[in-house]
């Protein structure tokens, strides 16, 4: 690989990786608090993209297809889909809080299928265009062209994540989230409203996913009912690799996954059809040597 190629793949990896990171973050937060692998998270992302598209088309009548429209779509979608996350938690997960973990996992799978099935029924499986005119202007580093859109996108997801990290580590509510994840009963004795904290976690996680959905929809220009499936898988992978439950871990995991994929596509001797073997192979090897992910805590169980 030439240097230009390496730089280009680095840029590619970072961009996809920042999407993965954003979605993984919500995955990881929800997991952190209620130890649930939320299979519906990818579908939340898909819903976010659809809501964003609807808002975008609507406000586009007044503000056009530029940044303003995208920002409106982003905000409205994050709010609406954040609330959707809260509703899902309330009706699908809360009744299961004392059920066996695998049953909750299956419930999450069910919730995912419901969201997906609804989207299929409503859209008939059609792929919708999300046409923006954000332009291709940007800067050139040697032969590598980076658009302003790409920069804004990476900056936006990094600042969302940084904000989240600050929230979790600095604020009282963030501490409450961590407390709830460690011991719900003891948290209640601190005066923490556990239901509220869990709802808030779902709100934030879902809003992040929706934000990712709108950004991805606008950036790639298409939205469809199945787009969440793969993204959910990637987010799950990234979250676990990062050390599940860890906010900065999710971020690193997402970026790492993006980079692995980018470079996995340009492996020497073999074609891109082997990319995922490379990606998963690396991840498995990685876990063998670092069994708790990048930033997961290595807990020596005290006996």
């Amino acid at each position, binding site marked *: 690989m030439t240097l230009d*190629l390496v730089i280009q793949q680095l840029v*590619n990896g970072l961009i996809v990786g920042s999407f993965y990171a954003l979605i993984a973050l919500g995955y990881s937060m929800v997991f952190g608090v209620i130890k649930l692998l939320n299979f519906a998270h990818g579908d939340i992302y898909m819903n976010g993209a659809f809501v964003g598209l609807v808002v975008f088309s609507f406000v586009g009548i007044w503000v056009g297809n530029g940044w303003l429209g995208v920002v409106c779509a982003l905000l409205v979608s994050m709010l609406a889909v954040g609330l959707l996350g809260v509703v899902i938690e309330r009706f699908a997960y809360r009744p299961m809080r004392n059920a066996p973990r695998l049953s909750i996992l299956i419930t999450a799978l069910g919730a995912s299928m419901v969201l997906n099935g609804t989207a299929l029924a409503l859209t008939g499986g059609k792929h*919708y265009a999300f046409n923006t005119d954000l332009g291709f202007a940007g800067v050139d580093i040697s032969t590598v062209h980076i658009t302003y859109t790409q920069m804004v996108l990476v900056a936006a997801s990094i600042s969302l994540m940084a904000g989240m990290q600050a929230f979790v580590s600095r604020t009282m509510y963030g501490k409450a989230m961590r407390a709830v994840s460690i011991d719900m009963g003891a948290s209640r004795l601190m005066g923490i409203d556990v239901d509220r904290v869990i709802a808030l976690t779902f709100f934030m996680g879902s809003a992040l996913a929706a934000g990712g959905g709108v950004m991805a929809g606008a950036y790639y220009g*298409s939205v469809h009912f199945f787009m969440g499936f793969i993204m959910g898988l990637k987010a799950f992978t990234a979250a676990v690799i990062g050390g599940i439950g860890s906010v900065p871990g999710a971020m690193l995991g997402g970026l790492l996954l993006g980079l692995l994929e980018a470079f996995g596509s340009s492996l020497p001797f073999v074609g891109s059809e082997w990319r995922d073997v490379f990606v998963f192979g690396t991840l498995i090897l990685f876990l063998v040597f670092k069994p708790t992910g990048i930033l997961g805590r290595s807990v020596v169980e005290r006996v």
Partner: protein
Amino acid sequence: ADIKIGIVAPMTGQLASEGQDMENAVKMAIEAANAKGGANGDKVITITADDACDPQQAVTAGSKLVSEGVTAIVGGYCSGAVLPTLKIYGDAGIPFVIIGANSTKLVAANQGNAFLANSTGDMQATTAVELFKKNGFKKIAVIDEGDAYSSDLAKLTAEAFMGAGGEIATKETTNAGEQDYSAVVTKIKSSGADAVFWTAYHAGGALLTKQLRQAGFQGGIVLGDGNNSPEYLEIAGSAGEGVYLLSPPTVDLLSGAGDFKGKYKETYGRDAGAYAALSYDVGDLIVDAIARAKSADQKAIIEALKASDFKGLAGEIKFTDKNTLQTSNFRPVIAKGGKWVAVE
């Protein structure tokens, strides 16, 4: 007695939209036939079975149709899902006209009862190579999605092109459902390809086109027959301008299909998709074959199908001794002003 025709198509899953088109159009043809007195005076009714483009579901869907005692079956969009059903229909001796699926593997596995109404992969490969040559493309990047259909087409085209003295710059595989193609785009660009041939479906095709153009790829882009969808043009937008497509016979390209197009939209409230016209023809063809067989006897229908000399919306249907189309119905088209127009 009523004559039952089975329709197998993906009604759910990623290709549900295409399946919907197929079902709608076949039903339209059958209703039209019924309005004219049915087949041999019998009313024709349809039964739809969803295969979700999944091999296992396809087998259950297929055996459901067999158990319902259908006289003939039409449909099949995904080669991967059609393949394991060939044995079932073959063993049951049921005439099966395949509308979309066109991998050459289907030809090999056919037990004599199945007919491919769409042109096969090698025909498409030939058309593709012709198109490359005509446009002076010498180094092609071939990209598929790793499913039965697109990898078959990619392989056939690569072989055909190299056979014709062309060079394959790179061969890549992407994953269905992913949105980011940048890594592959980078590879294509650095491979020095002067054109890209995308053999999979329109969802990925539109994204790939967009991302190729955004990355400044100036060469030609050619798409396989799975890309003919209005959605492609909508999503690719301006990046789609000048892209070639090996199109199946769609309503927009067919002079005689204007009525059908309007009626379809009126009945189903949506535009007729890429395979609507061909599906309509196949619906027509099967009724025609039953009429020519003068009975609902399946052997006779198979014979009648073999002897087809049918002219429909999408063109003529005549089968070779392998039950594939005698003449390719692929037409190269080019995107101009947000529309597919024929390449002269």
